[in-house]
């Protein structure tokens, strides 16, 4: 950071706080969601949905509280992060509510579970808890650097969260759940944040050793054997997740996150080469004996083959959803994305976006995700402390990888993995964890954009002034 550039979002001394911009964007985000809600009701029943005012009021309340808390506790925070998250959460609620109305899904639930209960009210509750999380993080976490103190505690907590699902029964082929009575959580979502905290703290301390103590070999800086320890540990952990929990997405997410943060901390390309090599070895190795992974890969390569269709037609159904949406989509409530049946409102919620909002809607939604990532990276650039930089890039990198893995999976770009689209998909863990993630990013951006204290007046100033005659 020797060269001064204009790419940081640190403004001049009197940086505007942009809170009013944020408020306007919030109004926009809430209005779009309420409008979409009305749209679904009109399309499916021909009248405005009865729950519209409750839903609108709920969303306004959540958005308002979040905004006021940011205004009070993080006045210089990035103005886009909160409205973008609110818009996605609001749209997600609409899509889930829309899928709740599907007779096909209702019938399926009644056949499988004997009863049907709509998911949208639960998701609204989760969103409220998520916003409460958001508020709690902003209120309690006055400075993100406090997290640095919990580096190793985070690691232990993350490991426990990641390992626990192994002791719980697999749900639909993947062990990614912890069930406690009526509640079940997906610990991977929370572990994502904890791991980013641990890496930031660990790498900030060790980055010089990792970056400088290395031998040059064929143009690459090879790390010392003892420095390879942590990376191999993480690699082994992600392989273990893949093998024992058959969770392709989480293992990809953690490894990707680690490589990204290691690269940023050390500024050495060799780590990326290592990372890619090791992930390739791991992926090929596991894929060669793990039937669950194999079937995912086969389904990805040929989603319409007889063997794939006999096992699961989800990918094929999802692709046809996208195709049927076409350029402009069928309109909310008028598609048949519920043909995906299982996980239509969770892992596959993007197919509903594709079918009912079309290519235009998909591009918009992907760009919203892109914008969140972009604001996160900007926050990392603007952060003044290495811990904040690492944490911000770690969180936004994890967010980007998760979006890519999930969206790429349902669009048949890469093999499918069982993760959820942040904010959009149904699921308590996901909503809670991602609201917390946004809160941390907002906290870092607030610190980064906060005006520097005015320099102490210098007594020499007047004496060195050039006075022209």
């Amino acid at each position, binding site marked *: *950071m020797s060269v001064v*550039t204009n*790419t940081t979002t640190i403004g001049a001394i009197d940086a505007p706080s942009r809170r009013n911009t944020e408020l306007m964007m919030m109004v926009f985000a809430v209005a779009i969601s309420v409008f979409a809600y009305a749209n679904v009701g009109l399309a499916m029943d021909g009248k405005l949905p009865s729950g519209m005012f409750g839903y609108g009021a709920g969303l306004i309340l959540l958005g308002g509280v979040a905004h006021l808390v940011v205004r009070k506790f993080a006045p210089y925070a990035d103005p886009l992060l909160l409205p973008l998250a609110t818009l996605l959460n609001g749209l997600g609620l609409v899509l889930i509510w829309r899928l709740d109305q599907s*007779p*096909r899904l209702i*019938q399926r639930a009644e056949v499988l579970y004997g009863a049907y209960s709509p998911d949208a009210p639960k998701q609204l509750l989760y969103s409220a808890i998520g916003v409460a999380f958001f508020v709690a993080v902003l209120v309690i976490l006055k400075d993100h650097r406090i997290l640095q103190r919990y580096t190793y505690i985070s690691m232990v907590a993350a490991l426990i969260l990641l390992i626990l699902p192994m002791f719980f029964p697999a749900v639909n082929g993947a062990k990614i759940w912890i069930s406690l009575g009526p509640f079940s959580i997906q610990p991977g979502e929370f572990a994502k944040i904890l791991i980013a905290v641990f890496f930031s703290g660990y790498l900030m301390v060790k980055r010089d050793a990792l970056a400088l103590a290395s031998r040059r070999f064929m143009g690459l800086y090879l790390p010392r054997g003892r420095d390879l320890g942590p990376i191999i540990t993480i690699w082994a952990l992600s392989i273990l997740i893949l093998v024992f929990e058959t969770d392709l997405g989480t293992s990809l997410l953690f490894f990707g996150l680690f490589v*990204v943060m290691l*690269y*940023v*901390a050390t*500024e050495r390309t060799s780590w990326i080469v290592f990372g890619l090599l090791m992930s390739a070895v791991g992926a090929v190795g596991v894929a060669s004996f793990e039937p669950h992974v194999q079937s995912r890969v086969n389904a990805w390569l040929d989603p*319409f083959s007889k063997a794939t*269709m006999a096992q699961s*037609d989800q990918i*094929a159904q999802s*692709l*046809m959803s*996208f*195709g*049927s*949406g*076409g*350029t402009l989509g069928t309109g909310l409530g008028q598609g*048949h994305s519920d*043909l995906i049946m299982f996980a239509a409102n969770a892992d596959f919620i993007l197919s509903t976006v*594709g079918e009912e909002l*079309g*290519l235009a809607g*998909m*591009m918009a939604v*992907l*760009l919203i*995700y*892109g914008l969140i*990532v*972009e604001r996160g*990276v900007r926050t*990392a*650039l603007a952060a003044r402390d*290495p811990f904040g*930089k*690492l944490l911000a*890039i770690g969180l*936004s*990198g994890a967010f*980007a*990888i998760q*979006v*890519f893995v999930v*969206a*790429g999976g349902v*669009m*048949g*770009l890469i093999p499918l993995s069982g993760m959820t689209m942040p904010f959009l998909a149904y699921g308590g863990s996901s909503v809670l964890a991602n609201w917390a993630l946004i809160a941390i990013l907002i906290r870092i951006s607030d610190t980064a954009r906060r005006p520097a204290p005015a320099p102490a007046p210098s007594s020499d100033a007047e004496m060195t002034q050039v006075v022209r005659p």
Partner: protein
Amino acid sequence: MNKPLRRIAIFCGVLILALLVRTNYLQYVRADELNSRDENRRVRIERYAHERGNIIVDGNPVTGSVETKDSDFKYKRVWKNGPMWAPVTGYSSQAFDANFLEKLEDGILTGNDDQLFFNRTLSMFTGEKKQGGNVVTTLNAAAQKAAFKGLGDKKGAVAALDPQTGAILALVSTPSYDPSTFAGNSTADSKAWEKLSKDKNKPMLNRALRETYPPGSTFKVVTAAAALENGLYTSIDEHTKSPLPYRLPLTTGNLENEGNIPCENASLREALRWSCNTVFGKISDDLGNQKMIDQANKFGFNKDVFTPVRADASVYPKDNRPQNAMAGIGQASNRATPLQMAMVAAAVANDGKLMQPYMVAERKAPNLDVIYTHEKEQLSQPLSGENAQKLQQMMETVVKNGTGTNALINGVTVGGKTGTAQHGLNNSEKPYAWFISYAKTDKGSPVAVAVVVEDGQANRDDISGGGLAAPIAKAVMKAVIDSKK
């Protein structure tokens, strides 16, 4: 740390870009392909989401729609007199897709066809309920009924054409099936479907279009046309210099006639009247394989026929001399669909002009605007007008005082040809009874018909084209003529 940060930013940008490219590829480039996939249930959901348009015969719909309580499909297809019309309409089932007109005209019937774009846009603004268009067929209900009744519980098929236009007037296949029994999506429907699929009598086979039979002696009309067209004989009453017995070329076996009939040196007219195998086998051999193939092709052999429902290609094969001689009397590997033989009779009746057979006269938009009308179209000219008239005289002799007297209709000129085609190894199975004919009134020729009866319950020796098939052909022709009055 800012340099790697920027690179990571680019990396994240590439990830998002890859997703953007992929969604464009899926939703723009591949959209049509994905939408028309057989696996895509939306096609079927859309097909039954509204009241489907109707298939119309003689101004009356032979189809209908009823509302169902199924969650996916709102309406179910029903047919009036299903077994009789199934060879025309085909089926349209929520569970088992569709075929024939129901499938080919799906765009019109569901109202999604591009031709209805204007209509659809209009009703979007006026808020009208979406409706399907109608398909008006060329079929003649009376003729269809006569053919269906005539075949009764026998296995067989009837195809009738208007020789002057190519309009299909009757298209019957028995045993038939009722498409209404499996139009829905319930277990009863599946059971009905399974039962029909396993039925040894193949009720779902459209014998008029999709089954090829050895045409037997009815093919002698084509052979006679080839003889006249190639100038082998110019007069139908001159002697043909054909020996009796006639030895098949390159073999030691004789080609036999059915019974003791006057075939030695018989004229073309007499040979057709008595159905002389020896005479026509020799003609086929004299002309050679290529000329026979050419003549058969002009009548439409060796090519699929689209009515628009596809009819299998009839086959006059490339073959060696003895086989070619046998093919000339409609045996060996010569095979024809009933529609094909009706086309032969129609071409002769229409003074040598073969018209493209068709069964969709009009397509109508939901508001009853006609959006398509079939223009009659000549397919080929298998024989000159002069030779066609000679052939007509020959065929009329067959009916007046030959093997086809069972097809005589009072006050109407009828020309025809019987056929009894052997099949099975060494003629081990019951032969097929054929009859092709046309009727002529003072206004030209309104109908040509081909009838095939696979195996009546009759005794083997009683099976003959004249006995079994001609009365059915007569009933069909009579029905057409009566309905024109």
